[in-house]
């Protein structure tokens, strides 16, 4: 299982209603379903992924989260999850507000743009950063709203969002001394658990 998802699952309690925005092949929801008996609902737009969700017995709705989530009622889910997708959406701030409206608690993970290797690439070489977390060329990337841990902290502060947990990990889901010392510099992936 992907590093960020391993951490997230600790925050999902049995029988919760979980909405996964951009649920991919549905494997994470399927895992939560078998382990924690959650009520699952995934949003996805990729036809192949949607088919994989159906194969996995995961509830999946073909819907573009960029357009609207108005069809989801306020407080209708215990947890709303957005994993590794924040940087690809049209208006991350509006999406965060919508997640807070629909879910009692929210979880967001994203690649930290301020990771030192990214910084180094930009400062020393003058190129857009690329890494295992950001493997795309600048002209062909789904990532249109990069953000850093500091940026997300600021957003939470401005919007009166209460951060329940915040952690950074590398790809092996290790948290090192350096990461804890300066997450915005040494963290590759940021994981936030928050509410209002």
């Amino acid at each position, binding site marked *: 299982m992907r590093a960020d998802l391993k951490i997230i699952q600790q925050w999902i309690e049995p029988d919760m209603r979980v909405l996964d925005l951009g649920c991919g092949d549905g494997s994470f929801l399927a895992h939560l379903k078998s382990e924690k008996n959650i*009520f699952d609902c995934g949003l996805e737009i990729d*036809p192949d992924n949607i088919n*994989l969700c*159906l194969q996995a017995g995961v509830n*999946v*709705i073909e819907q573009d989260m960029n357009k609207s989530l108005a069809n989801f009622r306020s407080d*209708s889910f215990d947890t709303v999850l957005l994993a590794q997708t924040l940087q690809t959406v049209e208006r991350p701030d509006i999406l965060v507000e919508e997640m807070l409206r629909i879910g009692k608690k929210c979880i967001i993970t994203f690649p930290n743009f301020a990771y030192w290797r990214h910084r180094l690439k930009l400062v020393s070489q003058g190129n857009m950063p690329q890494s295992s977390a950001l493997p795309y060329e600048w002209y062909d990337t789904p990532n249109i709203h990069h953000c850093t841990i500091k940026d997300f902290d600021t957003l939470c502060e401005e919007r009166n969002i209460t951060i329940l947990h915040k952690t950074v990990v590398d790809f092996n889901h290790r948290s090192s001394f350096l990461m804890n010392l300066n997450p915005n510099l040494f963290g590759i992936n940021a994981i936030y658990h928050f509410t209002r």
Partner: protein
Amino acid sequence: MAKRIPADSVGIVSPELFHFDEPLELRSGRVIEQYDLMVETYGELNADKSNAILVCHALSGDHHAAGYHNPDDEKEKPGWWDCCIGPGKAFDTNHFFIVSLNNLGGCAGSTGPSSVDPATGKPFGPDFPIITVRDWVKSQARLADRLGIHKWAAVIGGSLGGMQVMRWAISYPDRLGHAIIIAAAPKLSAQNIAFNEIARQSITNDPDFHAGRYYDFNTYPKRGLMLARMIGHVTYLSDNAMRDKFGKDAIEGNFGRDLRSGKLNFSYDVDFQVESYLKYKGETFSHSFDANSYLLITKTLDYFDPAVDYNFDLSKAFLDSQCKFLVISFTSDWRFPPERSREIVNTLLKAEKQVSYLEVEADQGHDAFLMPIPRYIQALKSYLGCVIEEISGKEAKPDAG
């Protein structure tokens, strides 16, 4: 010589007539004292009767959903949903027992307006009561009882068939495991009703209609039925589907304007392929379908609105439903476009039901639900694959169920 039958076909099938003596009280308040239902089944019912799927037909469908009737007729077309039903197909007859019936009021063997009224010895004609989707589902539940099926593994239908699926989830919330609703709508719009009314007017204004008693005159409203079907057929296709179908002449920007005889006639006869096609379709249909049944079933469509009993909040109708839902729409369907399916999905979300939804890119219009569109068929296969696992899981545990 016997014809060649594809390996994934259910093969030669024969329908069976079920007679019901218990009076059926209808939504209108009227009662059908006794009735017959014409039924076809494919596959085998398992020991604990947990593998049954009910297939619900649309306006012009009937019980013959798959396979062939005649072993010698080389030209015979298979049943209307043959692309989905058979060994190894989406509704896999190696695992499922599929039940398909001709609905009450139809004209393919079940009791309907063209059946003889035992009280008079004459066809019911216009005296046959208006049947609603709710009444159909009630009669289908009695068929399930007769077959010993307490709970369907799934109830599946497209268009008007999808409305029956919704009604099953509402009327018998614990008698189906899965509800698969394809190219449907929670109720008809004014535009939908308008098309139905034009179809009805075409039939009732035909001089051969004789106020619905045409059987007594040994005739039938052929022209009216033809017109009705032609109108209907256009609404089942998309603009693009028609451009493709009637635009085989390789001229760029042809728009489906292939000529019938290669030139304009400068008369009011048929000039374009589309005209002769519609005429042919209408004519074929008029031979095989009863005009009174057509009138009745268009009314059944118009009346469908399960929200009326729930203060016009459809989500309340589904509150007791215990099944999972799969809703599928097609992008070029303008009779029941994707927005209508999304209404169903949003209603189910509001009712906190388990629902999946697919919007399949397809050019074939409303008729897409009858076509072997790869993504659509694969989705049904994937979804029903899980249903097969559920059933076999249950079978493995002897104390379950």
